């Protein structure tokens, strides 16, 4: 059964239809990708999934439960976590604190216990800290927990974001252009990490990506969006040979010529 099942989701902003009638399903334990030219509605789609926007039409089911009408924090608690296209860490907090914030929905946050420090408060704090440093080890940032996020290099910030998203123990993690701005070597390391997320932690991964090497190298299923609509979906092989996709990326003329080349 599909972990995430999206049906006929549409979102309009004034006259602009950002996401139009998109249907998509993600199998548990898979790595899938959403690709498409800039402005195709990929990030809006993520925002619809995570409750930042509410779809005008359509249903989103996650693990057999509808996500429509849930606030972003409730979506997070339901087991879907995300990263952002332009990194949105809490820049003044330390790395480990960032990850600890990510655990919020899994904690018992009680005012009384916080003030009195009773009822296992200290135990919980200790557990949170341990889990955060475990996650930092997992993403390859061991020993950097006390750095202030702002001071970290770009690639490391991306890793912190992934650790923070993993902190809520999600079933599904949405990565929004996780390798943007990385060089080929860094991209390769990042791909390793995404695979590890799925293989070692059993978290289903959906990513938005522009780097075709990453997309083709890692994903088992690809959905292509253009002007808010699904224009193709399938395995990487199928997508590579799909005319519509080539057309969307390179324009009609190029598509024609590539077909001609293919026939020749």
């Amino acid at each position: 059964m599909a972990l995430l099942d999206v049906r006929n989701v549409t979102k309009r902003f004034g006259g602009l239809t950002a996401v139009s009638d998109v249907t998509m399903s993600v199998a548990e334990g898979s790595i899938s990708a959403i690709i498409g030219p800039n402005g195709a509605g990929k990030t809006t789609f993520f925002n619809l999934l995570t409750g930042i926007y509410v779809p005008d039409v359509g249903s989103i089911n996650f693990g057999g439960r509808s996500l429509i009408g849930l606030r972003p924090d409730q979506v997070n608690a339901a087991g879907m976590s995300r990263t952002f296209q332009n990194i949105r860490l809490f820049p003044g907090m330390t790395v480990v604190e960032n990850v600890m914030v990510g655990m919020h929905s899994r904690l018992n946050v009680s005012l009384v216990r916080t003030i009195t420090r009773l009822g296992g408060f200290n135990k919980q704090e200790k557990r949170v800290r341990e889990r955060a440093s475990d996650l930092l080890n997992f993403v390859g940032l061991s020993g950097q927990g006390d750095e202030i996020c702002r001071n970290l290099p770009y690639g490391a910030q991306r890793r912190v974001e992934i650790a923070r998203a993993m902190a809520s123990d999600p079933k599904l993690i949405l990565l929004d252009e996780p390798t943007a701005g990385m060089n080929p070597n860094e991209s390769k390391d990042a791909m390793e990490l995404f695979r590890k997320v799925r293989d070692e932690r059993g978290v289903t991964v959906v990513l938005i990506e522009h780097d075709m090497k990453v997309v083709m190298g890692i994903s088992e299923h690809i959905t292509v969006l253009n002007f808010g609509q699904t224009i193709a979906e399938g395995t990487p092989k199928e997508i590579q040979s799909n005319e519509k996709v080539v057309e969307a990326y390179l324009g009609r003329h190029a598509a024609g010529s590539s077909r001609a080349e293919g026939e020749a």
Partner: protein
Amino acid sequence: MTTAQSTPTIKISLMGRIMAPIRAVLDNPVLAVPALIVYMIAVTLILLGLNRSDPLFPLKSSLAFPPLVLSPFIVLSAKIDWRFKGLLVLAALFIFLPLIGMYDSSYFELVIQICIFSGLALGLNIVVGFAGLLDLGYVAFFAVGAYLWAMFTSPVDTYFKVNNMLVSANYFYLFIFLGVAVAATGGILLGLPVLRLRGDYLAIVTLGFGEVIRVLAVNFNSPTNFTNGSQGLDGVLRPTVPPFIPDIIMRVDQTLGIPISNANTLAQQMLFYLVAIVIIACIIVIARRLDDSPIGRAWTAIREDEVAAIAMGVPLVRMKLMAFAMGASFAGAIGVLYAAKQSFVSPESFSLNQSIGILAMVIVGGIGGIRGALFGACVVTLLNLQVLKNLSLQINNFKNIDAVMPPWLVAVILAVVGGWILWKLLKALWSFANRWFGNAKQAEQVRVVVWGVLVAAIALLTLQGSGFRFDDWPAQLEPAKYERLVFGILLIMMMIFRPSGLLPEPRRKMEMTAAKAEAEDGAIGGGG
């Protein structure tokens, strides 16, 4: 002290040069403790030595009292063992300050006011500093607490009096907790609809709420009289003084021989002081525990990036409500204390000015830090209630003795102020002129000329001037009435030069300065 570290190292300011040896003593683990003890004793002795009949008393007292009040902060900035720090702070709080208070009850009054504002600043700091919600109507919750106690104890013919609902003074301590509960409920009720709003809108709406509460307090005297309108409620009960306090006072009186004029007032003040210290201690403990917890981290996250915070599972409205309610509850407790201490409550005390004054405290001290909030409360309250008032008194004293400011002093003041303005003007002019000539030597010549003119002006004024007669000081220009001016200048100066405050919280400092620097780097043309 953090202040010294954060001054830019490029130019060593005059302030830095004065501070350096002091800093050296405070950093020396052996010297610091005796030096601090000597310091506190010395300041206390100076204060004890002041004479009210001295025409210069207001000036002297406002120079000598702040060093004593601020001594705990100096202790905390020293590099000594925390046990010594604790002992010295306790000594300041429980020996030196009460001693001065016994000697002159107006100092005690001031210390209690500082305590009250410290409590309010700590509460607002949770809302503004921790959660990043700018609340301009904070004083409303303070009013709720104050009116709660006042309405149930004032002998004025209100609804409560008429219906025999008044309570005895013994309920005071219970009402502190009730004040917490009622104000927190108020915070949640007000917060629920407005906390979805963006930062600057929230500021205006809370301002509106603060005003509404005040206007309601003015108008809730008809058809049923609850608040007695703008006349306010007087005769509010004070808690009964437990017998051990007069005992202590008697003993101190006997051993030290300090003449005590009004033992009853003093005992009452002592009680309020102790209650205030206990409340503030509780608030500090709670605030620290909140800061170091999932709640505190969630607040920081919200402050730094709301969208990311909610996407990471932080329930925004719930956490913001928590901050609002916590801040409100502290104000409620302090409000009960305030009503009892003043024994009079009226809408006047809960104006927008008051809210902004508390905000100024949080900002001056350093937004987001507990020590900063306390420091800000001390500095702003001292400025507002002591320095400005004493300046007014001093001017009156001068008027009474027909004092004339000597010509040289007038000359120096004029030269410093005028010279500063002239210098700024010339600098602007010169940076413009430099673009034409590209000559640094001429700048030096101009500087020499400016100094020459200034010195000449001082000399001329000293020789020719007749000095300034204080009788000519306009009656309307009374420093004590210009608290808004002081708050205004403080807020602007702090925002431009030290947005992170005088005792900054390291993280906040980064937030406030880094965003600015990024904007300056990134902006093109006029963007910076």
